[in-house]
């Protein structure tokens, strides 16, 4: 790729012709992608500098950075930033901590292993909206939910998940959705672990636990990095689960950045402030990505 963008030296005519052909053939796709990205981005930047309220059409006027000041000084912003980070961090920790033992179990030869694997992977194929509805109405409902029934079996007071521990409830739902992904990636990594290495460790007198700590876990460092990086991208923008279950509440307890932007635009009808929020979210995502790559990206180097 690098050679494509930065031709190092004068190439023979045939090579140059091939390169020209390659570029002309690539250009429609690249151009389309570019427009696809650049138009919404440009519009967002444009809107973010306007006073633009859908409740007051025709009053659009240029206000400079006023929308950013408004969004960043909104008390809801810090609360939702914190919620976003807690949500991302907890789901990452839970999917990896639960994904590793699950992957180890699924790597064992058992009868019906393929069926078990299919079942474990299934949540990943359920739409976030649907799974959130299932969790809200069938599992976590304080009156008719499965958890409430289980609690009453033991004579406990059912937990009203979305009122008492709303953020934790959302974390549970999102974890359930992303656990299959982590498990799957870790499982394929486990399967690529050289059998002879485990045998060598066995000959060296390593117990099952030592083998896991000294052989398996270091081998999993790279796939864990992949899971963290990919999940973070998606977890920063969790929306459907919050929208369906808590609507960001109670208060601001489950409002993350994505939901805050939505509420600016479509509850308060303030397009200008929502656009500013969107740009802030892009910056935050980049900051998170920067630190992540600094911290865990080392593992990806061969």
């Amino acid at each position, binding site marked *: 790729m690098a050679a494509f963008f930065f031709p190092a030296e004068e190439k023979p005519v045939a090579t140059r012709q091939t390169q020209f052909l390659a570029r002309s053939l690539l250009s429609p796709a690249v151009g389309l992608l570019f427009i696809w990205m650049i138009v919404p981005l440009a519009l967002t930047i444009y809107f973010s500098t306007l006073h633009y309220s859908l409740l007051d059409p025709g009053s659009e006027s240029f206000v400079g950075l006023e929308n950013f000041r408004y969004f960043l000084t909104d008390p809801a912003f810090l609360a939702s930033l914190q919620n976003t980070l807690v949500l991302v961090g907890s789901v990452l920790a839970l999917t990896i901590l639960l994904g590793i033992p699950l992957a180890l179990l699924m790597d064992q030869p058992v009868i019906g292993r393929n069926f078990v694997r299919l079942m474990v992977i299934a949540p990943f194929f359920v739409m976030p909206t649907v799974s959130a509805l299932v969790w809200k109405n069938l599992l976590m409902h304080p009156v008719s939910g499965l958890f409430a029934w289980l609690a009453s079996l033991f004579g406990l007071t059912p937990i009203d998940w979305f009122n008492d521990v709303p953020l934790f409830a959302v974390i549970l739902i999102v974890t359930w959705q992303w656990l299959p992904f982590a498990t799957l990636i870790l499982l394929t990594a486990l399967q690529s672990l050289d059998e*002879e290495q485990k*045998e*060598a460790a*066995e000959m060296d007198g390593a117990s099952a636990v030592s083998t896991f700590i*000294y052989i398996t876990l*270091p081998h999993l460092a790279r796939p864990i990095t992949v899971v963290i990086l990919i999940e973070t991208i998606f977890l920063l923008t969790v929306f459907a689960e919050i929208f369906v279950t808590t609507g960001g509440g109670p208060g601001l307890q489950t409002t993350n950045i994505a939901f805050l932007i939505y509420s600016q635009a479509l509850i308060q009808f303030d397009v200008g402030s929502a656009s500013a929020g969107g740009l802030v979210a892009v910056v935050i995502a980049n900051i998170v990505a920067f630190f992540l790559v600094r911290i865990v990206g080392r593992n990806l180097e061969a």
Partner: protein
Amino acid sequence: MGQITLQGVQKSFGPVHIIKGADLDIADGSFVVFVGPSGCGKTTLLRLIAGLEDVSGGKILIDGKNVVDTPPAKRGLSMVFQSYALYPHMSVRGNIGFGLKMAGLPKDEINRKVEAAAATLNLTPYLDRKPRELSGGQRQRVAIGRAIVREPKAFLFDEPLSNLDAALRVQMRIEVTRLQKQLGTTAIYVTHDQVEAMTMADKIVVLNGGKIEQYGSPLELYERPANLFVAGFIGSPRMNFVTGEPALQKAAATIGVRPEHLKIERDGAGGWQGTIAVAEHLGSDTFLYVDAGPLGMLTARYIGELSLHAGDRVSLVPDPARIHRFDESGNALRG
């Protein structure tokens, strides 16, 4: 001490019998090579001794103690794997010291032993490198270092040189043999390469189809093969086998003559007549592949250069003292 005895060892995977009863006595300090074609069970037999597979029947005695139910680490053996199986994220020091660390030895003792092992193998400058930063031969030496540092009763080698190029293989062959003699530790070495077997072994075990065909010193196997299989497997180029009239004259079903025991005569009238199909001139040796009509293709070896070429007629005269005789079932006839 490292005396290993196998008594009627069997192994089957489901209905498939891999090892059909192996009896073997390996003396302390000897270098024994398991050799045989692919799928003959030589690696399985090694893994049974190591404890990486469980036996289906029979006993494995190490220094007189049956170890069939002992876990691999407690058998006091160490193994060098075909792929080396180095731990990729550990330094050379970590790799060699891992077994000692698992045994719970104090840090300074581990360091001392690792450094001693590294010095023996000329690995000292590489102690802090990762395996991926080493060449094939160096990785091989790390794998050997990991084996010797534990001062085992015996080394088990599973085709350790098969991933090296030809020149390095010859060099490592010598190093491994020298190291084994220097340490005086019993070694069991699996290979499919009969040259490795002949050059390294004190004693060779020839395996075929899960059975031990013959157990003896390299020259014993070369001079007195027990049957057609061993006769054909040991020696390069392969022994010539002749059936029919010449065999009947010797009161055998098949007779075998090694290529180096055929005298090549340019215009001779005696012996076995034929036309040279291919002549290979190596300078030090000349190999002739001779189409001998009803006797089939015969290979003859001449030490030195012999100016004969494809299409020339030659006659091959077998050395009468070095004709091997076999009966109908392929077993050697003596006397």
